[in-house]
Structure formats: C-alpha cells, structure tokens
C-alpha cells in the first residue's frame, strides 16, 4: 500500500475540480478515480455505487461485480447525489477551480454551519472544509505556518476522531495530513500519536493498520525517542496478523534497522551493519515507495549520527530519483532544508523551505 499522502494530495487537488460536475449529474451513480495498484498505479475510473469504509471503497458496478479501492489509492469521487448542495455548486466550482483556497474554505465553512441533515453531505462538507483549511495554511512557510498550523491540525484530528467509527475513508487522508503538519512543526510525538490513533480506527485492513503503526514508529524515530520506538518495533514484529511479505514487512525491516542503529549510535560514525540491512531492502524491493522510505530513513539516521552530508545524498535521491511517492518527497524536502542549514548552505536551505508549499498540493 505504497501511496499515502501522495494520492491524498492528488485526490484533494483533482476531486475538487470534479465535484461540480458530479453535482450536475442525476441519479446515484458515483464516479471514482483511483490508482490501480495492480497496474503500476495507473489512474483508472470506475462508475458504480459506492460502499464507504474506513479502509476504502467497495464499488458495485453495473454488472454487479465489485471493485475494492483502498483508502490511500482513492484520487477522487464524484458523488451521484449529495442532497442539499445544488444551491452552492457554482460558487464552490469557481473557488476550487481558481485554486482560491481561502474562498473555498470559507464557502465550505459556511455550508457546514448550515448543519446539513444528510450524513453523506455532512461528511463531505466537513472533510472539504478541513482540507481547504489545511491547504490555506500549507501555502505558508516559516512563522506564519507555525502560527496557523496548530489550529488546522486540531481540526483534522477532530474530523478523524468524529469519523473514526463511521466508516469514513477520508479519515486516512485527514490523519496523514495532520501527522505531516505535526512533523513539519517538529512535533514528532504528536505526529506519532496521530498515527497511533489512525491505526486504531475501526475496520482498517491489516495493511493499513500496520502502515499507520510504521508511521508511528517513524515519527518516534524522528523525535529521537529510541526508548519508545524499540518496544513498538518488537510489538509490531510479533503481531499475528502482520502480512508475511510486501511493503509493510520491508518497511518494518527498515525501521527496525534504524532503531537498532540509533540505540548504539556514535557521533559521526556510520552504523554500517544496519545501513547494509536498509540498503539490501532498497535493492530488493520492487516498490518505489519502499525505496523512497528506505532512503528517507537512511537520511534521518545519518542526520542523527551527525553525518549531514551523507544524509543529504540520501534525501536528494528521494527528491530527484525515487520521487513517485509525493509524501516521501515532502518529508525529504523538509529534512533537506535542515540538512543544508547544518552544512552552512543557508541559501539552499531557504530555497528548500520555499519549495515545500509548491509540493504539498501539486
């Protein structure tokens, strides 16, 4: 399940363009765009009626067959019907299409305040409001971002909590954004908590549950908290429903190696044995997202071992080579800003800080 934020970003970016069209459609057939994992994550479209769960969608096609789409792979949904939204469709369309995030956020907020009675419409509006709120803040950098992000994180977390037991696939995306924003503010423990909560959302598939747990471990690693992350790695490793192979297992091997390395780290020394383990995972995996994750974690490891130049090469690889997973690219870019600062290249560090907003919602 490699695409997490990355597809969320695309979904959020593209779906807004499509909603107005959907609003104009009659009947209850939904139109879903998603990335097909079986076809190298090519984008596809299906039409049918959707059953929504926290793990994703089950789409029943006209021929009665079904397609399961995991939450991270959803790009957009055009609902066949969302009662009560017809009156605002033009304004929303205009704001979203122009990328006017503030206007879109305010329009959705106004709709939310009207307390729509239809649960699907309410969820849709709640989600869009928090997403556009996040988008407004994500366009900012530095102090402005630091000042405004906490309020948005609260909104995203509240949304996730409210819908955690309501079979909302959007929880996955909202939590990912909340975690990422926390991490950007260097609030890694809070980010880990978001992932922890996400892993406990009802009806998640084991893949998604452990994806969230690995996210939690990753954030604990980034916080430098080896004491907590080590037992967590052990706990996840022993889980009975853990997939036997695939990206989860590979990522687990990566975080385990990092935790091991950090528990005995020596300043300015490469933990060669653990680095070799991670490099082997990168070499063997067919999944580009795992490779990006591996390089990112190597970068983090080197940074914590006070080897910023080695870290720089790993992070740059994520940015310019293994860059299919936009989520991993974003993480690499914010750490590169730190990296260049440590290397005394302030101009480049600044350029990387400025680059972040352009990446987040592209």
């Amino acid at each position, binding site marked *: 399940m490699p695409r997490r934020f990355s597809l969320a970003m695309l979904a959020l970016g593209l779906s807004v363009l499509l909603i107005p069209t959907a609003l104009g459609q009659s009947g209850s057939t939904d139109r879903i765009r998603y990335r097909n994992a079986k076809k190298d994550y090519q984008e596809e479209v299906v039409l049918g009626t959707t059953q929504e769960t926290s793990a994703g969608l089950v789409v029943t096609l006209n021929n009665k067959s079904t397609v399961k789409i995991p939450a991270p792979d959803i790009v957009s949904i055009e609902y066949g019907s969302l009662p009560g939204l017809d009156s605002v469709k033009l304004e929303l369309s205009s704001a979203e299409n122009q990328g006017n995030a503030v206007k879109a956020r305010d329009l959705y907020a106004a709709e939310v305040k009207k307390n729509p009675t239809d649960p699907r419409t309410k969820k849709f509006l709640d989600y869009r409001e928090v997403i556009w709120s996040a988008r407004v803040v994500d366009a900012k950098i530095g102090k402005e971002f630091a000042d405004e992000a906490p309020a948005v994180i609260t909104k995203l977390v509240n949304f996730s909590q409210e819908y955690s037991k309501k079979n909302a696939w959007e929880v996955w995306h909202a939590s990912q954004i909340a975690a990422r924003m926390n991490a950007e503010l260097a609030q890694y423990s809070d980010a880990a908590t978001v992932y922890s909560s996400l892993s406990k959302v009802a009806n998640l598939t084991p893949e998604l549950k452990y994806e969230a747990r690995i996210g939690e471990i990753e954030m604990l690693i980034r916080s430098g908290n080896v004491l907590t992350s080590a037992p967590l790695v052990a706990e996840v490793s022993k889980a009975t429903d853990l997939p036997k192979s695939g990206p989860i297992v590979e990522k687990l091997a990566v975080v385990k190696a990092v935790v091991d390395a950090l528990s005995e780290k020596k300043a300015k020394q490469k933990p060669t044995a653990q680095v070799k383990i991670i*490099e082997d995972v990168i070499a063997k995996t067919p999944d580009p997202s795992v490779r990006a994750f591996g390089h990112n974690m190597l970068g983090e490891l080197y940074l914590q071992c006070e080897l910023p130049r080695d870290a720089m*090469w790993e992070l*740059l690889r994520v940015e*310019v*080579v293994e*860059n299919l997973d936009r989520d991993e690219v974003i993480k690499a870019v914010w750490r590169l800003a730190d990296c260049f600062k440590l290397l005394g290249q302030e101009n480049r560090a600044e350029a990387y800080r400025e680059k972040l907003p352009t990446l987040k919602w592209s």
Partner: protein
Amino acid sequence: MSRLVVSCLLVVVLATQSTHAVAGAPDPFDLVQGLRENGMSDLALEYLEELTKKNPTAEMKILIPLEMAKTRLLLAQEESDEAVRDAAIALAKQDFGLFLLDHGKHPRAAEASLALARVLSLQAKMALNRAARIEIPTGEDGRPDRGKFLEKKAAFKNVRPLFVEATKRFGDAAKQMKALIESPMTDTFRKKSLTREAMLAELDRGINQFNLSETYLAAEGAEGAERGKALNDAKQIFSDLSKQDTSNPICWVARAWIGACELEIGDSGKAKEAFASLRADIGRNPVAAMDGIRMVEFFEAQNEYLNARGGDLGATRGARVRTKNWLDKDKYKSRMTPERLSMTYYYAYLTQREAEMDSGNIYEKKAADDTTPRKLLNVSTNARGLLQIAAKEYKKLQEFDNDYTDRANRARMRAIRFIVGEANRSPKLFTNFDECFMAAQVRLGTLDEDLAEIDALTKLPAKTKFTDLDDYKTQTKKDTQREVISLFERTGDLVGPATPPKDAAEARLWLSLAYLRCGHPQQAAVAAENLALTGRGNTAAKAGVVAIESYLASRAELDPNDAEARDVDRTRAVELGLKLDKVLGNDPATDSVRFRVGQLFLEEKEYRNAFNVLEKVRLSFGSVSTARTLLGRAAYMIVISKDPAITLEMKANYLRRAMSAAEAVPEPTNPSQLKVFFGLKNILAQLYLLQGGGGFVKAESIASATAKRATEATMPEGDKKYVRFSADEIRLRAIYGQSAPLYKDGKYKEMADKLTPALLIMKQAGPAAKEVESYRGVMPTEAEGDTGSAVVAADSLDRFRREIIVLGLQGRIREGAVDQAAELFKLLEQLGGSVEATTDALSRLVTLVRPQIQELKKQMKDEEAQKLVDVVGKLLTDQAGKEKLSARARAFLGRSLRDLEQYEKALEVLEKVPTVDEETLKLPTMQLDPEKREAVVAYQIALIEQIRAHRYLKQFDKADELLKPAVGEDGKSGWAKSLEFRRERNYVKEDRASEAPKAEKSKLWSEAYAGWTEVLRPYVNFVSSRIPKDADINRVKQDREKLYPVILDLYVEEKRCLARANTQLLESNPTKLASQLAAFGKQIATLEKGYAKGLTGDVRQRFHVLLDEYPQMKAGYQEAGGTAFLEPDSELPEVGIPGGGEAKE
C-alpha cells in the same frame, strides 16, 4: 533582433518524471542525472567527485568522466563569464570526444554522441551570439555602415557550418539510439529511456535547424531561399517527431515548434492554425500536452512582444501583461529555461517601454521645429514603479551570461538612469540603498567620460577661484572621483536589516573597485582584502582578486628603490592569495587569484612557488591556456635550473605534471583565444623537447599538428604566421634532436633520411622572412594581429633552418656525398637570405666539424680527417670567392679557414679585409657610426686571425709585426684595448720560446711568463688594493668579485705557460720538474680558495684540463686540498640542439 533565441541545449528536461523505477541496488548515476535535471548540477559534480574517491568499480570508472562531462556542460551554460564558459564547454566537448574514442562501443556511446551534438549546437549558438554583438554604426549620411554590415553578415555566415554539423550529429545520434532500441539485447526499461532520448535528439535537431535560419542576415535572393529551406527542413523534423507518440510531451512540444516555424516563415495564419489545432487536441492527453501548451503560449506571447515593439501604449501594455502571465505560470520551473530567459527579457523591455511612454513623465521642452528626440527629465510615480520592475528583471538576466546579457546591461543602465534621475546629486540626498547603489554604479560607469570631458576643456569656466586651467582640471578630476567614491560609501551607510547580505557584500566590492579606479589602490586593497576575508563565496573570491590587483597597483606607485615598502605590498598580496586558495579553493574566482599570484612568483623567478600555485588553476578558468603556458614556463625554468636542491626525479615530476596539465586544455572555440592556445601547444612541444629521447617524436607531432591547425584556424594573419613559424621551428628542433644522435653514431644515411623530408619542405617554402617582409617597420592593424611577433618568429625559424642544413651538411660531408653537400649548400644560400647569413652558417659548420677533425686525427684517421677539411674548406673558399662579400663575412670566412688549419688560404682571405686607419681604431667603437664600426670589427677579427695564422705557421716575426701597432711597443701603447690582443702577444711569445734553440729558450720563456704577469697585474692590484674609508664596502666587494673569473682565467694561462716552460727547461731533471709542477698545483689550490667566488664553469673546466695535462701538478693540487678542478665541469651543457635552452612561446 533575433526572433527566437531559444537555445536547443537547454531543452533537455521536458517533463519531470521519475528517473527509474526498477528493483536493484541504487545506481549512483541516477542521482547524478536527477540532480542535473533538477537544476543542481553543482551538487551532481560534487557527488561524482566523491564517487571517484570511493574506490569505484571498473564500469563506474568508465562512466564517471562521461557523467562529469554532462554535468560540466550544464554548469558551463550557467556560467556568467564568457571565457570560463567557453573553456568549460570546450572541456566537456573534449571529454565526450575522448569517451567516444575510448569506449565507442559502450552501450552509452550513443548518449555521448548526442551530448557531443549538443555541445556543437551550443558552440554554434555562442558563435552566433558573438557575431550578433558586432555593432553597425550609422554613418554621417544616416545610413548603417556598409562595411560593418558586410563584416557582420560574413560573421553570421561563418557560423553556418557549425549549425549544419550539429544538425548532422543530432541525426547520427538519433540513428544510433534507434539501432539500440531495435536491438534484442536492450531491455525494456532501457528501450523506454532510449526512446525518450532519441525523441529529444530529434527535437534538438529540429531546434538546431531552426536556429540555422538565424545565420542568414538580411537574406535575399538565393540566400533567402536557403533560409526558407532551413526553416522548412526544421518544420519537417518537428512534424515527423510530433506524430511519433502523442503520450509523450516531447511530441507536443514539437507540434508547438511547427507553429514557430510558420511564424518565422512569415505565415501567421498557418501559425495560428497550428497552435489552435494543438489546443483542440489537448483532450487526447492533457498531461502530455502541458509542455506543448506552454510552448504555444510562449510563441504567442513572443509574437505579441515583437508586434508591440513598434506599437502604441495599449499594445505595449497588452503584450506586457501577456508576458507577465506566461512568466507567472512558469515560475515553478526549477531551471531558467531559454524560454523563460527570453520571456523575462520581453517582459522587462515592455515594462520599460510602458514606463517611458507614461503620460505623467516630464520631457525636455524643445522648439516645434526641433525634431531631435526630447530628453526625459523626470518620470511619474507609476513609471518609476515600472522601471524598478524592469531593472529587477534585467538584473536576473545579468546574473549569468546569456543571449540577453548585453542588451539587459544596457537597458538596465538606462532604466536606472531614469529611476535615480540626476545621479550627480549629493550622496546625502539618497535615502534608499538600491537607488544610491544604482547611482554610484552609473557614476562609475561614466567616470571615464566625465574625466575626458574635463580634459577636453580649453578655458576656465566663468565662476571659479582657479586662475590656471591645468590646476582647475586636476582639482575637478579629483572632486569627480571623490564624488563617485562618496556615493559608494553612502551606499554602504544605507545597508539596513532588510538589505540582502549578498547585495551588501556586492556594494562593498564595488566600493573597492571604485577606490582602485579612482587612483586609491591602497584603500582599494584594504577594503577588498577585508571583504575577501570576512565575506563568503564568489563575492569574497572576487574581492580577493581586486585586493591582489590593488596591492600590486599600490606597489607600482612606490619608489622602485624602497624595497622594504614594496615588499610589504607584495607580501600582503601573496599571503592573501595563498589564503584564499585554501579557504575558497572551489570558487571559480579563486582561479583568478591563483593566476595572478602565480604570475607574480614567475616575475620574481620563484619558479617552484609559481608552479605550485598555477597548477591549481582549473580547466574551467577562462584564461586557462595562459595559465598553463605560465605553468609550462615555470616547469621549463625548474628543469633547466642548476639548483642542487632540485633532484632529477623532481625535475622529471615537474615536467610530467606540466605536460599533462597542458595536454588537458581543449581547443577553444572563441577565435580570440586561439593564439594563446596554440602558444600553449608550442610550450607543450618544447617541454617534450626538454624531455629528450622519445619526447622528440612527440614534440615533432605536436608542433606539426599545431602548425597545421593554425593554418586552418580563423585568426588574424599575423597571429597565424607567428604560431606557424614558432611551431615549425619547434618541429625542426625535434627533428634535430632525433637526427643528432644518428650523426654521433655515424649513421649518416639514416640521418639523411630523417632530415630529407624536412629539408624538402624548407626548400619548397622558401625563407620565412619573405612572408613577413611587408610587416617590417609597419604598425599592424587590429585585423592583421601580432605582426611584430611574426617577424621575430620568422627570423628565428630561418636561423634554425640554417642549423638544420648545417647538420645535414655535416652528415653529407662525413658520408662523402659531395654532390648532396653542394646541393645543401645551395639550399643554405637560398634560405640564408644573405651572404652574411650563409657565412654565419658556414662558421657554425666549422665550429662543429673542427672537434671531429681533431678526434679523427687522434684516432689516426688522417685521411678521413683530411677529407673533411677539404670539403669544408672548399665550401669556405667558394664562399670567399664570391663578389660583394662584406668585410665582416670575409673576416669570418678567414677565421673559419684558420679554424680548419688552412692557414695559407685563411691569410689569403683575411688579407683582403680592408685596413682601417689607426686614428679610427683608437676611438671607442660606440662613438663610431655603424658603417665604420662594422669596418673596425671586421678588421680587428681579420688582424687577430692573421696573427694566429702566422703563429701556427711559425712565422713569429710576421705575427709580431702585425701585433706591434695593436699592442704597442717600447713603452708606447697601441690602439687595441681588447685583452685578446695581449693574450695573443703572449701566445706568440710562448710559441717563439718553444721553437727557439735551446740556448735562447730560458730568456724567451722568461719573457713569455713576464707577458702573462704583466697582463695579470692590473687586475690583481685592483682587487687587492685598500678600500677607501668612505666607500660602500659591499658595493666595492661586489665589483671586485666580478673580476675574479677574469683573474682566474689569466692564472690558467700563467700556470700553463709556467708548466710548458719548465717542461722544456727542466727536461733533463725530472725530479725537479715534478717538484716544480707540484708547487704550481699547490698554488692553484690556493687560488681556488682565494677566488672561490669566481669559480665559474669555464674556469673550472680550464683548470681541470690543465691539471689533467700535467699529472704532477694535479698531485700537488690534491695534496694542498684542492677539489674544485678534479672533475670536469658538470654544468657545461652537452652539445645538443643549438639554442635548445631558449623557451619559445
């Protein structure tokens, strides 16, 4: 202005996409490519450098140079200094060429071919830009200067073959790629990437073909048709490419270019159709079409800009908004693409135009019938805002060299002038950093004009306290310079928290430049040094260059005798340079620092220091050829140095390093740099000459290639000849170096075979001097180049050609091939240019042949020796028999005959030298006019040679008779001042004593000995006299020490005379003779200690020969602790290439 300035090479990355998505260990070159594609070529290069240090695999070792070349090529395109960029591009080109040469069958060879095509295309574009810079002034009749126009047109035409070649290369590379794609050995993933590369190659080919049309300046008739064909060909390439794969962005871009071709052809209707059709098809693949749309919008905006240039305010504003919109949409592109570059210029230009058209501006008032343009006196607030935007945009274009840099420079300066208004106002009135900085730059930019204006004043202004015009001018100039400096100082005061540190540092750099320009080098040096040591990056390195220049300028102003003060500035400059070398070693500007410091060391003859610092100058340095030439010179001087601290191994090491450094420099494309480059090649060939052995072959090959390239190159004729003659001389020296050992080994036939081709070429070419006849005594025009150096090189070449003929003559004579020798003599005459020159060559022949004759005689090969004497003697007498032979030539021929022991013949020739009256002979030669001086010199040579001939013929009375008027008699002094005559008199005395009957020997030997003591006495008295109290002791000592070698040389004669005399006089008493000789040996040991500072190589050698001749004398010498004369002098050069130690450049 060129309609389209999109350089093909920058269109490398069209769509950001993941580089690889396959399992396997990470490929380091993926990261390199990714970094390049994302505008981080500097990091890519750093990464490659790190890779080279991490024990790379054999495959990586092959690929790292290719990757480095690709990276350097991109970096070169971002380089602001044209010379640096040219050098870097040429280097990349060389690296691609080398890769193809070494690994032509490597799977990535096609990629190297493509890169090479891109380099060629880039060089073509750069050459076109250079040609475009030729300005066509307007003549008095208001029309463009026709001559200049034709020159520009010709320059454009010269560039055409480069584009044609590049187009061909692109096509070849695309074919190579297609072959690889079709190969069953290529895996699917590689096929994918190759397909993309092949498409890019086609796109680049099309763009290159499009750019070819730009080389037709004001094309009409047949040329117009050619231009049209070039555009139609380009259109066809784009059309074919556009149909290949609609899911690929490259094909969409190609579609957009079809419209651009139509616009260029002049069919805007078809262009609109092409653009509309592309837009209509977006739905087929919106993502892939994005790049195509971007280009369509670019071409449309460009077209609007072109139409608006002559349009009204509305059209200008509309076009400005459109260009701005395009830039806004494009701002997230990580690289400064050529399209953005063009659009930035268009936007800046239109913004400036709109500002200048603003109705709120105030213009100069003029009479209604005055049609000259009105000056803009003040700009409105709105216009000011627009001008500030324009200036900012122009600045972006100034930050690196590109098609627009020159125009942007000029336009920005104009914009700044309007913004700052009257730049002459008081610095205090400026309250804004940017404006003050701009005003200061404007004032510095016009300083020379302002000073010239003051200089041109012919009378004092009405209101002034000055009464003298010159005083007024001096003071006004000072005031003007002070004002400029004050503006920069004020700029520094206006630096605030909001000022970007880079701008603040730049202002400091400009201040130091202003100090330097305004004649305050010391302040400039201090300010620049401070910035260099406290600043960062490129600005600090540039400040270092300014500081060093300033210190040296400051030193030049000091009293030449104030060594201490001069040394302070010199030391500061050197210390700063060496510090920057360490601290800012990677900055491009640091190479300038190294270059300057190296130059200084070289001037000071500190060759090793010079070498060490110059060796660090990188290939990317703009004047790398000059730097490597200096490096070669330093190596040359180190190698020929006699410093015992430099071992042979060290010398070999220096030589090797200098040679490989010189070899690494690629040929520049800029014709103005070719002369220096070929000079470097000549230095390289000379280093190989110095190496000897196999080095001669290499030197010959390099010099031959250089001469050939210089003949083909586009260079001023004077430069071309200079390079060709110098290279040709080195080639001949190399041939000489290979032939001389053959002669030594008696392989005359082989030597003749080696020399014959060179001699034939010489025969066909004729004297080089003839080719430069028109240059002599005439000041060259700029177009002619360095004709002075060409003349010097031609004369030098002709001289060496004669040496080669002399060597050939020697061989033929020894071979017994008299006819061939005669033929060579004819060639000597043909190339000699004058009888004198041939005579000189014959004298040299005798000098070379004489030791051989003696050697043959020693070996009892009298017949062979005689044959040699006869042949050479005949050449000499034949020459002497010529009419119109000058006195000097006759004297030299006589001397040569005497050298050959042909005394009678010698006397015959020498006696024909006209005599000179005694009064003239007594006058110092410097007081004589050249003609008389020539006559005196010839007569003196002839006279002394006659005396010698008589002496050898034992005709002592005749010799004495000739000597008397020269050296005087009976206490009266003669006219001869030279020591030579006094020496000769003593030789005559010695020989007379030697030949005298036994009874007279003692008396005559005493006279001979007395003759030597008489010659020695004044010298010994001079060096042993008491030093006056008020004299400068050191100076006196130095003067005296200068005479030590002369005294020692005379002591050699004195001891030899004594030894010779005693050997005859004590013939019957060997014991006494031995004791006497030993005593002389001890005296020599004493002389060695007493005159230690006079032990030159010559002196050592002469004493060594003497001691070797008299073993008892040697024993006494050794007993007394003498050491210096035991071994032959090692410093004496072996007979090698004549003048081989002379560095030529």
